[in-house]
């Protein structure tokens, strides 16, 4: 970006934590930060707490609650101002977790996948290889699971064996489009794989120099932004999906994109980089706004908007963080 590019840096409040920031977000008007050493901070003034004795490995949230999985085998549901609720405690690291519609929760520890509906009915599924990524469908009670060799689609309340979507290779993270038509996984082999469920059509999205560990859908469900390259790679998902269409490249810089987060109400993408920079890019005209010019240089490891799209929070591996208040 050019030096003359407009900047929002004077609207950023700096925050500091003492460990790798695993997750950042908002619960209502309260900011949320979770570190890998197990600290949860909700709201700037409240005391931090440690729901798990030790490390937190996985975090997900929706508008109302934060879900955490730890190396103690436990899963907690945390709401602002309330005591954390222990949902489950088992053996092994809980290193994937997903939040579903109507209060459902899914998590995995190694080859065991657990799904719990809002009423508290718990279902388990034993896999032949570890679950790596979990994502609920936006409607109905259905879970997509990424693992070695493809993805599984599971209806936890029907005991039927899950449907297998096969594609050779190791699949890592998983996401489902807002209309439920597409399941996308990131892969060990630095590419995305997608399935168009209507006809089981395969979509291979490759060309990345690194693994894609962050994906974000636009509010209208038409675009999927991804990390893993020296620009945010944004795939078009209108109509039949991205096949045969080139992706957009947003915010190209000489540093790898580590985090992407689409604005909840506009086609504006927040992009975090491996050198600590944060930019906003408007998809319609590629206009860029600077949020952070690197800070301490540590890679951005967390990035999220609030529900209104008025505030943006970011965190870095070093524990540095920042809160952007957009002008009204």
């Amino acid at each position, binding site marked *: 970006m050019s030096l003359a590019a407009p900047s929002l840096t004077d609207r950023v409040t700096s925050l500091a934590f003492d*460990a*790798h920031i*695993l997750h950042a977000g908002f619960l209502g008007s309260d900011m949320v930060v979770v570190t*890998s*050493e197990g600290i949860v901070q909700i709201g700037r003034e409240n005391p931090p707490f440690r729901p798990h004795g030790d*490390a937190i*490995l996985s975090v997900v949230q929706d508008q109302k609650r934060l879900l955490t999985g730890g*190396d103690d085998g436990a899963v907690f549901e945390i709401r602002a101002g309330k005591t954390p609720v222990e949902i489950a405690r088992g053996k*092994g*690291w809980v*290193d994937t977790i997903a939040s579903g519609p109507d209060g459902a929760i899914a998590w995995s520890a*190694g*080859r065991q996948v657990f799904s719990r509906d809002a009423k508290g009915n718990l279902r388990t599924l034993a896999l032949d*290889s*570890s679950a*790596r990524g979990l994502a609920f469908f936006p409607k109905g009670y259905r879970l997509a699971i990424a693992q*070695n060799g493809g993805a599984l689609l599971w209806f936890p309340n029907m005991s039927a064996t899950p449907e297998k979507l096969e594609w*050779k*290779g*190791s699949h890592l993270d998983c996401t489902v489009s807002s209309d439920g038509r597409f399941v996308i996984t990131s*892969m*060990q*082999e*630095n590419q995305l794989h997608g399935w168009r469920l209507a006809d089981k059509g395969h979509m291979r999205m490759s060309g990345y120099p*690194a*693994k894609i560990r962050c994906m974000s859908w636009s509010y209208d469900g038409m675009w999927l932004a991804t990390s893993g390259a020296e620009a945010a790679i944004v795939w078009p998902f209108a109509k039949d999906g991205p096949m045969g269409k080139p992706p957009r490249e947003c915010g190209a810089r000489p540093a790898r994109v580590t985090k992407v987060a689409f604005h909840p109400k506009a086609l504006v993408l927040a992009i975090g980089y491996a050198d600590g920079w944060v930019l906003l890019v408007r998809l319609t005209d590629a206009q860029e706004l600077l949020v952070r010019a690197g800070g301490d240089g540590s890679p951005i*490891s967390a990035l999220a908007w609030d529900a209104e799209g008025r505030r943006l929070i970011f965190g870095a*591996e070093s524990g540095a963080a920042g809160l952007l208040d957009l002008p009204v």
Partner: protein
Amino acid sequence: MSDKIPVTVLTGYLGAGKTTLLNRILTEPHGKKFAVIVNEFGEIGIDNDLVVGADEEVFEMNNGCICCTVRGDLIRIIENLMKRKGRFDAILVETTGLADPAPVAQTFFVDQDVGEKTRLDAVVTVADAKWLKDRLKDAPEAKNQIAFADVILLNKTDLVSPAELREVEARIRAINPYAVLHKTQKCAVPLDAVLNRGAFDLERILEIEPAFLKTGDHDHDHNHDHHHDHECGPGCTHEHHDHGHDHDHGGLKHYHDEDMQSVSIAIDGEVDPEKFMPWINDVVQLEGINILRSKGILAFKEEPKRFVFQGVHMILDGDLQRDWKPDEKRVSRIVFIGRNLKDDELRKGFLACAA
């Protein structure tokens, strides 16, 4: 060296003494904190160390390379551990007794994120002095572990006679003449014999010669570390260049293992990189599945620096290192350890790369 976290892989057949070694490493007063990746939670776990259970999930990379297998669970565990840097100084990976070390080692070269934050230091194999001989006959895993090793602890030496010990040592040397071997009881070795070896570090591959020709296979004498790194000057009388398979290795009987061998080839001079690079790439592409380990130090034509490479199956890592010293003879040497190696073909192929 970088600030990458060193990773030591402990292998060994069932009952050889891996857990004993692990406990020894953890309990020595070294002031270091370890993250330990184990398969079964046994009698280990020290307050300051992180202990993690693993699943040994081996899978193929979908990159057309059939022997490019990696440990998926290890990638996941290390990814999580590296978010907690500061909590430990080094990582120990204990494999199951039946494990092939290759997928573990390859994980560090194939996975970019793991490779950026950690470095494989060495593969340490614990062998049972009493039972190894039998296992080499009936357990291909045991043979793999010996062939793959950078450091071998020939353990439980108190349970065998001196003659039996020499016998099993000779059997080990028939498979892997290059590993540093320590004869131990209860895995009693100084920690610097197994940690911080830099066995995969190109800058520390200083010479390639059978370890037993060096001073010692020094059992309990760890102050001789510099001997590993000694360089043969012009006054060197070691008859190790192009040694054949015909002399008596320091009093050891010579065995030939039908299945697993090492092949060492030397050119008494320079190599043409234009010929060597395509040749070595072809070799590992075609024979990589049989080649467990490879190493080489080469004098390239009109190149003042030494070219050093090391490989695991099909994966090669090579670079130009320091300058050849004025008193150093510019010779080129490569070694392979593997199964059913085509000795004549390899020899002919390498010799044809001479400048």
